[in-house]
């Protein structure tokens, strides 16, 4: 009699088979592919999206140009990621909280920051401040440490019984940090109203995603924390907007956190201080313009008769003028106030700091 063969399927199929289809509403040719959303889309929404995408792309290109001319410090460009940021920010309610990173100016501005945010790259604290009443944190430069913060803000909102929800932005690299996992676990345990909005742009500075993780997707990490996970085309502003809105609604209604993975691409460098051609194929990067979020929306708008070339040109001209004006304003700021260095460390300066400030002012007087 032949020996009995014991089948061990669990050992051989070591990969967890959890499939998250990529949500898409409008494809890269501008065709509506998910008719569920047809009734929710109209001319006004499409035009609102378009204006904001064009503004943000114009701002980003202007910032890069200012940096090259020595008029702006090191800058992290976001071109390619506009739909992910604008779509998710437009899904927020006015009272919600935003925890952005350094690459999320499009989200921050869409949610209410001024173009003056750029001045933060010239070391101006003014650029970090949101307008009165807007709950927009300064961009987090440390990686992933904003995620436990976002969970905490959401826990506080829930504790206070408010209807505020929180959105936290982060990149693919951040998912390797312990803070990402701790933030998700906290939000899950306390069912905190927070949307973890990941922009998977394929690279963490020089490290490609397949070297960052052995998991096939980012969104599958939601399974471990038993929270909803959504994987979507981050260059499709409609998919971003509707899915983020759904996740925020769920959060607001006691449904706890959601992890969203928005698949996107940054065409440019990590920051203006590096050269992406040294760590990836820039030709291949440029080929991704076929899936560009702005041209996709142009195709959609034209297909549906929501606007023509002349209208698009007028949007571009308006955006360019607005941004030129904002840059003028930024460049006419008075020099930084020396008090900025000493006055924001404690509620009232401790004697050590007061003494250092006095010494410094005396030193300046002597110089003059």
């Amino acid at each position, binding site marked *: 009699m032949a020996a009995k063969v014991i089948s061990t399927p669990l050992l051989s199929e070591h990969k967890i088979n959890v499939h998250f289809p990529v949500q898409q509403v409008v494809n890269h040719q501008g065709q509506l592919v998910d008719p569920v959303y047809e009734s929710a889309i109209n001319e006004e929404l499409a035009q609102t999206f378009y204006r904001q995408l064009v503004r943000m792309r114009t701002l980003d290109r202007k910032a890069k140009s200012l940096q090259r001319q020595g008029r702006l410090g090191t800058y992290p460009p976001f071109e390619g990621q506009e739909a992910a940021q604008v779509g998710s920010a437009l899904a927020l309610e006015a009272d919600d909280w935003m925890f952005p990173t350094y690459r999320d100016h499009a989200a921050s501005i869409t949610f209410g920051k001024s173009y003056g945010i750029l001045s933060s790259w010239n070391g101006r604290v003014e650029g970090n401040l949101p307008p009165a009443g807007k709950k927009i944190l300064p961009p987090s430069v440390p990686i*992933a440490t904003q995620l436990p913060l976002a969970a905490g803000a959401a826990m506080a909102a829930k504790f206070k019984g408010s209807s505020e929800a929180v959105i936290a932005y982060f990149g693919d690299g951040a998912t390797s940090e*312990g803070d990402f996992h701790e933030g998700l676990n906290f939000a899950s345990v306390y069912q905190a109203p927070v949307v973890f909005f990941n922009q998977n742009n394929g690279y963490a500075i020089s490290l490609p995603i397949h070297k960052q993780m052995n998991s096939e997707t980012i969104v599958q990490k939601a399974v471990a924390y038993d929270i909803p996970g959504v994987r979507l085309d981050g260059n499709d502003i409609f998919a971003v907007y509707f899915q983020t809105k759904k996740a925020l609604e769920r959060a607001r209604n006691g449904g706890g956190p959601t992890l969203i993975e928005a698949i996107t691409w940054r065409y440019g460098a990590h920051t203006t201080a590096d050269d992406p051609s040294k760590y990836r194929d820039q030709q291949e990067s440029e080929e991704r313009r076929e899936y560009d979020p702005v041209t996709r929306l142009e195709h959609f708008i034209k297909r549906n008769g929501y606007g023509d070339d002349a209208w698009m040109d007028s949007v571009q001209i308006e955006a360019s003028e607005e941004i030129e004006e904002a840059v003028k304003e930024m460049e006419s700021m008075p020099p930084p106030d020396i008090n900025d260095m*000493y006055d924001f460390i404690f509620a009232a300066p401790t004697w050590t700091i007061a003494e250092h400030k006095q010494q410094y002012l005396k030193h300046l007087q002597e110089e003059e």
Partner: protein
Amino acid sequence: MARTISMSEAINEAIALAMRKDPDVVLLGEDVAGGAEVDHLQDEDAWGGVLGVTKGLVQEFGRERILDTPIAEAGYMGAAMAAASTGLRPIAELMFNDFIGSCLDEVLNQGAKFRYMFGGKAQVPVTVRTMHGAGFRAAAQHSQSLYALFTSIPGLKVVVPSTPYDAKGLLLAAIEDNDPVIFFEDKTLYNMTGEVPEGYYTVPIGKADVKREGSDLTIVGIGKQVNTALEAAGHLAGRGIEAEVVDPRSLSPLDEETILSSVAKTNRLVIVDEANPRCNLATDIAAIVADKGFDSLDAPIKRITAPHTPVPFSPPLEDRYLPSPEKVIQAVSELLGETSSLSL
């Protein structure tokens, strides 16, 4: 044979020499190779770190020994501590010393404690290379000088080189050392050039270097501030004041003897440390000299440090934040009791 190379090249060369000598030496960190598995990018073109310090190493040593890790400081720091205690001799690159916040436990409660808690039976031959320092327009979270934090932890050695020669020799000594060494690299010094011998040599950890001899006062500088002290000393010499400049090079262990004997000769001490003033190296050295060298002192000890504030991002504010030759000369004039202030 000595040639003139940059600090960055000296560090790169030290890593290469150590890796050639000892197959157990590996380098791990974020972006240290760059261009992982991009077909058209050959290893010779790989990026080599955010400031290119490790460029070319992956070409010679391959991706088995030069590891681009996920963005996980606790991950690679813990891996390095454990790999060191189980037979390798890793160099972990903490891109900016400010990122220690994400992985301090691996250093403070793990690597630094292994030998002690295993009753001397474990060793942790790891080197942590990390960038520090203000003046690079890198803002409050990428510009700190946190060497005092590490100096206060028993079980860690701490070195802060001020020249390419010292950087190469100290890094080779750090890699050879059987205890954890935290090796600080001032990012504003990477382009500083100096004479560096081609071959393998070490600079002993724990030995200070008198960078300039003088008899009127002693100036101790930490890292880049040695150069500030030397510049000030040059100006002072023009006024007939001879300053002795001492570079401790290692902060842990600290060569107290060289500092004390210099003060015994000059009777006056100025310490220049760009870290925040409380519990920093200037304060520590001042306490040691007050304790062990009080009889040598003819005047109070002066400390030139940053103010007790974060590093400002605004360029005009950052420029004034750091110690400068002017600030050193001002302190010296107070110390020598000049009736009118010296100036440049």
